[in-house]
């Protein structure tokens, strides 16, 4: 017997036991008091970071202070951030279901995901797609499919605009990457995936390119007798744009990879059946 059958159904939603609540509520109340007291007793910062940033902007190669902080003054944080993202995506890809363990389904990545409708789930809109090794979940509605198709050029354009705008106004690699990732998730959810074969082939390169370009350029500065991440002011703008373009691709690829490598419900059910 599977363990979940022995438990009341409501437990999949999570119930809170009385004694846990009795411990948690005083803890939360105490933390609230401590934090509010700490904020009330704060002292002003000794360094005026905003003024220091504004002073250094002209030498940074970009005009927008956030982009300057992210890729110039505190580029180290961003370098480590894309490394963390890459590590998370690699772990998720390593953990995804083996194709053999999943239900027998076509592995051809070129198929535009005609969903397999099993007899038992007539109430369920979500079916495992056939398009993808990680077990794509396609919601089959004409509205979503049309919308996804129509949104492709719009979201691509928006991402490129955000990337370009990052130099002078709000925008940049993070927002552009998030928009591209949203497009990727939409492709997975709707099963409408133009150029799927091409993108799948380049998936690993896309995961790596942000970290590789960033680290390569950062270390390349050492060869020029400059500090790590010390862009020469003359070409800083171009370097930052190149890094941001690579970061955009990688942020999107890593986030979509993380989304897509979550095991499918059908696979989970199959596993449960194997074990019982």
């Amino acid at each position, binding site marked *: 017997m599977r363990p979940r059958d022995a438990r009341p159904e409501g437990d999949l939603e999570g119930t809170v036991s009385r004694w846990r609540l009795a411990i948690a509520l005083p803890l939360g109340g105490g933390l609230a008091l401590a934090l509010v007291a700490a904020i009330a007793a704060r002292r002003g910062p000794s360094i005026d970071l905003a003024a220091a940033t504004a002073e250094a902007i002209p030498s940074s190669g970009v005009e927008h202070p956030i982009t300057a902080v992210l890729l110039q003054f505190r580029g180290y944080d961003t370098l480590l951030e894309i490394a963390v993202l890459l590590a998370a995506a690699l772990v998720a890809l390593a953990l995804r279901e083996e194709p053999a363990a999943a239900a027998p389904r076509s592995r051809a990545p070129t198929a535009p995901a005609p969903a397999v409708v099993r007899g038992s789930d007539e109430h369920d809109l979500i079916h495992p797609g056939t398009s993808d090794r990680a077990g794509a979940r396609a919601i089959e509605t004409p509205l979503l499919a049309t919308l996804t198709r129509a949104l492709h050029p719009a979201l691509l354009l928006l991402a490129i605009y955000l990337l370009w705008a990052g130099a002078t106004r709000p925008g*940049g690699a993070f*927002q552009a990457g*998030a928009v591209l990732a949203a497009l990727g998730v939409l492709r997975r959810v709707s099963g409408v995936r133009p150029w799927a074969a091409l993108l799948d082939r380049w998936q690993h390169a896309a995961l790596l390119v942000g970290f590789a370009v960033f680290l390569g350029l950062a270390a390349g500065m050492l060869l020029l007798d400059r500090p790590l991440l010390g862009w020469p002011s003359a070409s800083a703008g171009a370097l930052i744009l190149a890094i941001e373009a690579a970061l955009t691709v990688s942020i999107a690829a890593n986030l979509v990879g993380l*989304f897509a490598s979550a095991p*499918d*419900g059908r696979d*989970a*059910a199959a596993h*449960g059946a194997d074990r*019982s």
Partner: protein
Amino acid sequence: MTLLFDVILGLGLLLAAGGALWSRSLFRAVVLFVVFGLLVALAWVRLEAPDVALAEAAIGAGLTGALLFDAVGHLRRTRRDPPDGAA
């Protein structure tokens, strides 16, 4: 006027977070978490951080919401549709 807006938005943040954390239904909790993400994006605008607001709206509300809905759907599907039909 903006003070009133700030107060309402702050209380709305706390309410949405309370619902996301303590509501009995997991699905409702995730819906309220997405609402919370959108309200936080508004708070970032009020804090004069448009970059963070953009990222929060796209990532905090959109992407995290999609991930969580996917996971909750996975839980529900597994419960509703047992593989061997015996349970």
